[in-house]
């Protein structure tokens, strides 16, 4: 056995200097990103994301052929836009799911297993550990979301020959929606088990979803109570309203006017919702940091 060197000898490693906050965040974020790769979370997400895009491409190819053969030119663009928006709607759902799934276990799992103990006894703050984990999950989620949305838009362009209006703005709104839910999953993970956290965050997403539709239908039929309840739900969990804003942005003006299809936007969420959602994420991060810092491990 090799004896340890005495303190008088130079050893690899001293003196240590506690890493700065930013350095600690990047170390933990890097580890979290590697985790997504090593545990094949990223590979599975990208594989099925790619499958989704390919399937959409094949479907769009045949639909575009039919539409071009049968529909008058004026309607072609609107139909293709509708098909693309439908694909983005499905992609949005997958993105929401993935944003939550990559995050629910990141703190909760390590707290449950005890892995977190040797992290939190290092000279780094718990806020830095939490923020690092958030950043690592966020990068994983963003990569997935960009592949999925980028794939759908590329297929729409190459196969269908069209791009929805304001596509960039729409994608940013979808990213913000995922970020809201991802951050909620981090908040829940500071105190709940992985499963309870998942159930809670999807439950909140469900509330926002129902609220969003209540707002739309309430506006359409002129029911102020339904609209008010819907708006309140959107403020509490601003995910669905961000999707509605994204859908509104990516529809051609004519579709907005006739208010048809699953992307009806009778009540267009205020652009201020973007500011609200960004503030919401920042406050949620502060809350997560506080809840994590003040709990026993």
């Amino acid at each position: 056995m090799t004896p340890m060197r005495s303190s008088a000898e130079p050893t690899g490693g001293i003196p240590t200097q506690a890493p700065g906050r930013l350095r600690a965040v990047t170390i933990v974020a890097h580890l979290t990103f590697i985790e997504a790769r090593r545990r094949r979370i990223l590979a599975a997400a990208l594989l099925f994301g790619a499958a989704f895009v390919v399937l959409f491409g094949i479907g769009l190819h045949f639909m575009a052929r039919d539409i071009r053969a049968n529909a008058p030119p004026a309607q072609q663009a609107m139909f293709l836009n509708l098909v693309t928006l439908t694909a983005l709607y499905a992609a949005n759902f997958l993105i929401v799911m993935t944003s939550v799934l990559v995050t629910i276990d990141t703190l909760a799992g390590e707290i449950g297993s005890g892995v977190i103990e040797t992290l939190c006894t290092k000279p780094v703050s718990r806020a830095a550990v939490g923020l690092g984990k958030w950043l690592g999950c966020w990068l994983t989620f963003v990569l997935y979301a960009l592949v999925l949305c980028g794939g759908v838009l590329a297929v729409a362009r190459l196969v269908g020959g069209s791009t929805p209006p304001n596509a960039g703005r729409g994608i940013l709104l979808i990213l913000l929606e995922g970020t809201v839910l991802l951050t909620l999953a981090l908040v829940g993970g500071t105190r709940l088990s992985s499963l309870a956290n998942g159930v809670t965050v999807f439950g909140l997403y469900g509330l926002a979803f129902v609220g969003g539709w209540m707002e739309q239908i309430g506006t359409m039929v002129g029911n102020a109570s339904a609209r008010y309840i819907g708006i309140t739900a959107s403020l509490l969990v601003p995910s669905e309203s961000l999707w509605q804003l994204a859908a509104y942005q990516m529809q051609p003006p004519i579709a907005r006017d006739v208010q048809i299809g699953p992307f009806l936007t009778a009540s267009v969420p205020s652009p201020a919702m973007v500011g609200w959602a960004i503030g919401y994420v920042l406050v949620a991060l502060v809350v997560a940091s506080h809840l994590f810092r003040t709990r026993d491990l």
Partner: protein
Amino acid sequence: MVEAPPALEARSLSKQFGAKVAVRELSLTLPRGEVFGFLGPNGAGKTTSMKMLLGLVRPTSGEGRLLGEPLGAARGRARVGYLPEHFAFHEWLEGRELLRFHARLLGMPTRGLDAGVEERLRRVNLADAATRRVREYSKGMKQRLGLAQALLGEPELVFLDEPTSGLDPLGRRLVRDVIRELRQRGTSVFLNSHLLSEVEVTCDRVAFVKGGRVVRDMRLGAEERDLEVEMRLERTTATLVADLARFGHDVRVEGDRVRMGVSGEETLPEITRWLASQGVGLYHLGARRPSLEEIFLEVVADDADAVLG
């Protein structure tokens, strides 16, 4: 020259989980370079105490300092190593990657980080398994990796929570040797263990904890360890028992015998002289150093409230 603060100071640290008191009024000081054993039955509050000292668990009341810094302060944690009881780690990392990650979190400078990691891997005999995923490690290998992790960054105080629970005799010897090397370097060690034979050969001092409370604190060096004295006296009265306490501690009457702990052999003639001066006949006096296991069983089985002195 300013003297370095003790490795550890705890004053009346208590932790309550709902109605359950896990740790009650823990007060102790761990001088620099001392190897301290924290002993007690399962559920006595040993791990919770260690976690409070490390800042993982917030005390309900009381305070403490780690290497002169308040509990939970990053500056203290930078100089502390910790091997947790369940040694759970990121299993999808390779052994070497895991140590590098922990070294970076400790703030070890890039120059020398790899050398430090390799040295720890060799020390716990894991150099050959360094590129294997931790998931593939045996229980003992994971525990040794955890030990290597606790030794990163030249800590001044190392907490080891049941460090030999998953180890074979060779692994246990390795832990014993590591603790000895740490002591030689002047590093303090706070050890939670069930293995009394190990504690007996590695620790300078032990404290027994039961029901969240420290019920006895003693030194372990052969010449320093307390003697257990047994006497048979002509008569035993409450006053006599109370007066005997001035010569030692834990005075108790068991049948026709009086038992007590004294600090050394020199106390024995003092007791006999005093008994003679009181006119109390002494029919038998025996003294021996009990094994740690005997003390443990006695302390754990005892009703703490019945201990006098």
